[in-house]
C-alpha cells in the first residue's frame, strides 16, 4: 500500500482559553474521497486551516507523500498542491473567468507580462474538463454567472492549479439538487484523475453518494473513523451521541391546521408567473426547487423586497400589496434570511439588540429603546433564556456566538412581533446537528401557536422531515404539490422535469 497523500498525526492546537484540537490523526489517499464530518465547533475548520498553513499546530506532524511538511502560509500549501475551496466564494465578480482561474499565478510572456491569449486558451481547456462548464466563456465576468456556475469555476480553479489534494468545505451549501448532481460528477472526475479529496459536509446523503471513508470529529477529537462507508445512523451517533429519531419535530395534526393565513392568486413579476398559493395557520409549507426556480424570488415578492407586479395577495383576510420589507413586516410577515452574516445579523451589536431590532424598528424613533409595544428588555431576555441561547451575557456582541445561537436570536426577533406568516430561507445552513433539531422544534412550536410558516430549503431530507406540505417550483411557477410523506424522488422529478409550455 502506498503512503497516504496526506497524513496528519497527533495534531494538537489551542487558542486562548480553548483547546480546538487534541491529538487528531487523519489521512487521505490519492484517488479517494475522505469525508470529514462533525458538528460546528468540532474542529473541522481548524484542522483544514492547519493543513493549508493558515494556522500552525502546537504539536503533531503533517506528512505529504510520506515526507514531513511545514506550511507557514497558505501559498506554500497551494504550491505543494493542496487547494482549499471555502464556503464563501473567493472569486472576484469584477474580473473575468480566466482572470479568476489564474489569480495569483497568471501565465507570463518572456517579458514578464501577463500572456492573456495563453491564459484564455488554458482557461478554456480547464473548463472543458467539466461537463457543466463547457459553455462558460473565459472572458465573461464572474459576477454575471449564476451561483452554481461560479461554484464550478471555483473547483476548476483548484483543478487548474494542478492540485493533488482538494479540500471542499460544504460545497453544496448554496447548490440545489441538480447542481449537486453536477458537482458530484465533478468530484468523481477528480477522483478518477487520482486527486485526493477531503470533503466536509453535514449531509448524510452526500456521504453516502461520494465518500470512500469517513472521519468524525467531536469536540476536537476523532470520535470515529470508518474505513468503509458506515450507515448514517452510525455517523450521527458518533457526531452527537444520540439517534436520529427525535431529530425532526412531529408533523401537524389535522386539527392543528386552521384557516388560510396567506392566499395568493395569479401573482407574478419579472421572475414569477401565475403563482397560486395558500398557507394555513399552523402548517409548515416547504418550497422545493432547483437554484433559480424562483423560490427566493417568491419569498422576496411576499416580503415586499421585489414585489409582485400582478395578482392578488390576501393576508389574514385582507387584500395586501407590500412594496417594501417594512410594509410586509407591518402587515404581519417575518423573514429569516438565507445568509445570516450578510443579511440577518448586526454583528457588532449585542445579542439583545439583535433580538429587539425589529420591534424597535416599529416603535417611534425618538422613544426609549428599553420598551415598546412589542417587546421590552426583560421580556426579550426571558425569551432568549427560553430558547436556550448560550451566551456569556446578552450584552455580548453577537458575532462571538455559534451559528445556531445566532439563528435563534433572529427567531427571537420575529417571535416578539407575533407574525402571521413567517418565511424561513435555508434555516439550518451552516448549523450543527444539535442546533438544527432545536430550530426544527422552534418552527413547529411557532406553527402550533397559529402562525403559517413557509420554508425554503435545498436540503431534501429537511424538506421532507419538517414540512406538512411541499410545493415545488420550476422556472418561476409552482409546478407541483406533495403531502408530507412525499419521497425525494417525486420532488426531484417535479423540480427537474420538462414542463409543458403554456399555450
Amino acid at each position, binding site marked *: 500500500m502506498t503512503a497516504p497523500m496526506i497524513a496528519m498525526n497527533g495534531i494538537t492546537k489551542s487558542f486562548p482559553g480553548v483547546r480546538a484540537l487534541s491529538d487528531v490523526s487523519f489521512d487521505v489517499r490519492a484517488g479517494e474521497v475522505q469525508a470529514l464530518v462533525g458538528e460546528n465547533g468540532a474542529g473541522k475548520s481548524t484542522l483544514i486551516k492547519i493543513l493549508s498553513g493558515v494556522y500552525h499546530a502546537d504539536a503533531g506532524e503533517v506528512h505529504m507523500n510520506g515526507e514531513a511538511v511545514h506550511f507557514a502560509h497558505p501559498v506554500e500549501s497551494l504550491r505543494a498542491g493542496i487547494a*482549499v475551496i471555502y464556503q464563501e466564494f473567493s472569486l472576484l*465578480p*469584477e474580473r473575468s473567468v480566466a482572470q479568476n482561474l489564474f*489569480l*495569483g499565478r*497568471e501565465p507570463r510572456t518572456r517579458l514578464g507580462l*501577463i500572456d492573456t491569449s495563453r491564459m484564455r486558451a488554458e482557461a478554456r481547456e480547464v473548463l472543458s474538463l467539466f461537463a457543466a462548464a463547457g459553455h462558460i466563456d473565459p*472572458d465573461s465576468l464572474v459576477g454575471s454567472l449564476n451561483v452554481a456556475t461560479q461554484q464550478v469555476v471555483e473547483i476548476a480553479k483548484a483543478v487548474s492549479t494542478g492540485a493533488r489534494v482538494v479540500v471542499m468545505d460544504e460545497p453544496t451549501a448554496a447548490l440545489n439538487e441538480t447542481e449537486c448532481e453536477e458537482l458530484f460528477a465533478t468530484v468523481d472526475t477528480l477522483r478518477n484523475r487520482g486527486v485526493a479529496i477531503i470533503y466536509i459536509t453535514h449531509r448524510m446523503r452526500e456521504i453516502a453518494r461520494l465518500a470512500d471513508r469517513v472521519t468524525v470529529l467531536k469536540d476536537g477529537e476523532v470520535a470515529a473513523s470508518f474505513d468503509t462507508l458506515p450507515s448514517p445512523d452510525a455517523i450521527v451517533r458518533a457526531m452527537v451521541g444520540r439517534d436520529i429519531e427525535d431529530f425532526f419535530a412531529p408533523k401537524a395534526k389535522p386539527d392543528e391546521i386552521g384557516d388560510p393565513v396567506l392566499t395568493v392568486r395569479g401573482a407574478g413579476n419579472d421572475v414569477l408567473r401565475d403563482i397560486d398559493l395558500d398557507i394555513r395557520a399552523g402548517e409548515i409549507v416547504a418550497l422545493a426547487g432547483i437554484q433559480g426556480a424562483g423560490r427566493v424570488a417568491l419569498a422576496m415578492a411576499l416580503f415586499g423586497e421585489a414585489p409582485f407586479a400582478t395578482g392578488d395577495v390576501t393576508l389574514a383576510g385582507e387584500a395586501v400589496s407590500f412594496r417594501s420589507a417594512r410594509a410586509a413586516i407591518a402587515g404581519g410577515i417575518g423573514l429569516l434570511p438565507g445568509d445570516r452574516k450578510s443579511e440577518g445579523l448586526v454583528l457588532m451589536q449585542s445579542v439583545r439588540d439583535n433580538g429587539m431590532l425589529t420591534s424597535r424598528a416599529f416603535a417611534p424613533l425618538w422613544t426609549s429603546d428599553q420598551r415598546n409595544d412589542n417587546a421590552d428588555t426583560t421580556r426579550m431576555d426571558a425569551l432568549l433564556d427560553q430558547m436556550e441561547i448560550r451566551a456569556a451575557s446578552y450584552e455580548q456582541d453577537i458575532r462571538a456566538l455559534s451559528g445556531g445561537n445566532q439563528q435563534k436570536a433572529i427567531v427571537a426577533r420575529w417571535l416578539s412581533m407575533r407574525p402571521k406568516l413567517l418565511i424561513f430561507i435555508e434555516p439550518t445552513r451552516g448549523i450543527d446537528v444539535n442546533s438544527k433539531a432545536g430550530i426544527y422544534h422552534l418552527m413547529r412550536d411557532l406553527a402550533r401557536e397559529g402562525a403559517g410558516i413557509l420554508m425554503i430549503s435545498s436540503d431534501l431530507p429537511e424538506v421532507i422531515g419538517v414540512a406538512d406540505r411541499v410545493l415545488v417550483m420550476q422556472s418561476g411557477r409552482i409546478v407541483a404539490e406533495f403531502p408530507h410523506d412525499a419521497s425525494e424522488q417525486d420532488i426531484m422529478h417535479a423540480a427537474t422535469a420538462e414542463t409543458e409550455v403554456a399555450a
Partner: protein
Amino acid sequence: MSIASDTRPTRKGFRFDRWAPLLLLGGAFSIYVAVAIATGQTQYLTFDNLIAILGRSIALGITAIGQTFVILVASIDLSVASLISATAVLASVVMDGSPAMILPAVLAAIALGGIVGLANGLVIIGLKVNPLIATLGMSLIIQGCLSAFVSNFAGEVPSAFQVFAYGEVGPFPFALLFLAALAVLAWGVLRFTKFGSDMYAVGGNEEAARFAGIKTGRIVILSHIICSVCASIAGLYLASRLRSGAPWIGSDGVYDLESIAVVVIGGTILAGGRGGIWGTMAGMLIFSLIDSVFNIAGVDSYAKQVLRGVIIVAAVAFYAINSKRIVA
C-alpha cells in the same frame, strides 16, 4: 462543438459603467463647444486652445494617476497635497539654481515620495489604521515638518529643469506628452502585469487574493509607494512650472480632494477593485473642460464653486444611481 463557440466571444449586453466616463467627457466637451459658439468666442476652438486645455491640469493628472492605484486597492491617500509641496520645496532647494544638481534633486524627491508611500503603507497594513486617518495624519506630519523649515518659496529651479513644464515637442508641451506616457505606462501596469492583476484582486476581495497566494499587504504598500511617487513627480512638475517650491502649493491646489474626485468621476469606485486609468484621464479632462467653460462663459468665481460641487456629486450619481449597492 460548433464553430461559433471557437470564435472570439462578444461581451453580452452594454456595460454602462465602462462607457460612462467617455459619455461624461463627451458631454463636457459638447458643453464647451456650445458655450464657445454661443458666446461668439470661436477662437477658443482652435488646436492651440485645445492643447492649452489638455495642459491645464497636468499636476492634477499625475497625482490622480497615483490616486487611482490606491483607490483600486480600496485604500485612499489624503497626504498627496502635502507631499507635493514637500517634494517641490525639496527639489528646488537641492537644485538651488544649479543644473548639475537636477539629477540628485529629482532622485531625492522621488526617494522622499517612496519613503512617504512606504510609511503610509506600513501604517495602514502593519498598524491596521484606517487609510483615511493614516494618510490624514501623515499629511499633517509632512505639512508640519515642511512649514517648520520653510515658510516661503525656497531655492530655485535652473532653467534647464524648466523644460519639464515649459518645453515643447512640436506642437505639444513636453509635460503633456509626459503625462500621456505616464498614463500609458500605468495602463500597461494595470492591464498586463501580475502586479496590476493582483491589485484588482486585493481591491475586489482581499481575502480571496490572500488565499490565492497574493501577498496582499505588499500590494497595498506598493500601491501607496506608486501613489506617493506620482505625487512627488507632480511636485517636481510644479517646482519646474513655478520655478521654485513653496510649502503651500499642494494645499492651495487642493490636490488631495480633487485627485480623489477626478478618480471617482472617472468611474473607479471607492470600494476598490473596479476602474482604471483611462477613466481617471477622462475625469481630469472633464475638470479642465469645466474650468475652461467657466472662464469662457465668465462665470463668477463663487457661482463656479457652487457649480463645481454640484457637478462632482452629479457625475458620481450618474454612475451610482442604478446600482443596487447600499452606500454610506
